[in-house]
């Protein structure tokens, strides 16, 4: 399905994952957006908020997944107002993303993971691969880098991990994928969602573990000063 035009399109050759632990979920992703062999963005944020306590990991076309995330956000905000609540259930968010993905499957190139926490079902992960299936799973990986870590994740995920164990697990998995997949790289971002808070963190590029005697980067992510426009 890849024609010349899509090579020019900005893609998130990617590693994304999400997994449940005792009391919440951890979402993880790399930060490389590539357009062919050109790295369009080396510090992208592929974990987008859909609504309170619900996040979406995006892989595939950056444009398609950003549009889907925008629509999901719109519908979920309206839904929350109709319900008179602050957020929505993870199942609802996943269903909406699935409806968009399935209805537009002919034109879309998007594999997504919806994960979060809600009061009724606690931590939940839903994966929506290309084509628009919806699956309720305890953990999921996606993107071009996921093939290298499927076996690792299958073997090492255990139910009822603690929050720190889960975060370490996600970081290790994503960094393993980064070391083998040319389309994944940069920093390892994580979002941890539970009943009380949503915590966004990242492991800078020079601190991401290496596995193949790569030369470690020394510079890391440069500090960017924000200068307000006068």
């Amino acid at each position: 399905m890849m024609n010349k035009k899509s090579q020019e399109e900005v893609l998130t050759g990617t590693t994304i994952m999400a997994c449940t632990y005792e009391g919440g979920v951890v979402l993880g992703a790399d930060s490389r957006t590539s357009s062919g062999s050109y790295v369009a963005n080396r510090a992208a944020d592929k974990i987008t908020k859909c609504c309170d306590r619900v996040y979406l990991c995006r892989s595939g076309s950056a444009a398609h997944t950003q549009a889907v995330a925008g629509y999901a956000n719109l519908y979920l905000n309206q839904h929350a107002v109709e319900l008179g609540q602050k957020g929505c259930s993870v199942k609802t968010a996943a269903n909406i993303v699935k409806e968009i993905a399935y209805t537009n499957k002919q034109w879309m190139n998007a594999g997504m993971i919806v994960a979060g926490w809600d009061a009724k079902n606690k931590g939940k992960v839903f994966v929506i691969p290309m084509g628009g299936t919806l699956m309720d799973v305890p953990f999921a990986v996606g993107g071009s880098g996921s093939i290298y870590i499927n076996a690792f994740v299958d073997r090492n995920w255990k139910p009822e991990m603690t929050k720190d164990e889960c975060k370490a697990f996600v970081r290790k998995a994503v960094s393993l994928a980064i070391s083998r997949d040319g389309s994944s790289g940069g920093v390892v971002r994580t979002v941890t969602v539970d009943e009380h808070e949503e915590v966004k963190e990242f492991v800078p590029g020079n601190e991401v573990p290496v596995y193949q005697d790569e030369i470690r980067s020394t510079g890391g992510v440069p500090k960017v000063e924000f200068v307000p426009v006068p």
Partner: protein
Amino acid sequence: MSGVGSGYDLSVTTFSPEGRVFQVEYAGKATDNGVPCVGVCCKDGAILAVEKPEETKMMLPQSNRRIFTVSRHCGMAVPGKLPDGRQIVSRAHQEAEQYKRFYGETIPTKVLCDRLANFCHVFSLYWSLRPLGSAALTASFDDQGPHIYLSETNGVSYRYYGIAVGKGRQGIKTELERLKLGEMTTREALKVVCKCLMRQRDESSNKKYEIELAWISEETGREFQRVPEDLAKQTVEDAKKEIEQEDSDSDMEA
């Protein structure tokens, strides 16, 4: 009430100088003068009951239904004009189905009843339409527990512990207020609700009538169902007997 409108009641798009829309109020009369319907919320569920007069001897009993299932977890009784009420039920079917399809979850009762009230209200905004002569008395069981809602033709939708509409509603409401429905199970409340309904009947009238009962509770697995035929029959007979007993007791005291 006829004559009060005088000129301001000819169209649904006309306000009176006091700010009333008479056509909507007249539509409400269709419900007020219609068959008595009762909905109550109990400890573990909700009950709907409708008392229907037998229109003709030639009609098969239980064929003139007034209580409809909207979805697994929700059902509705329809007072007033039955055909108008069926429009509301049909809309409720669609709303429940589309909500499930898009959001992946069963429609919360509050959302459904608010949407139905909005639906009824729309008919009072256009000159080419007339308001519906019915209301939606909804019973359901969702994550927040059992619900009874009344979505009226004028567009309001409220939640109730217990509510009666139709002929004799004032008397039924008075009786319901005396009961501690929150402490009864649906099984216990069935007979009590029947009695409230039947007591409002005109005693001198010998017309035959039929009571349609439906419920939703923990016992039914949170599924809206008609009360099983033998139980319904038994309940109505027991209620009748008890009323006769109480009447003769009160006669003796007098």
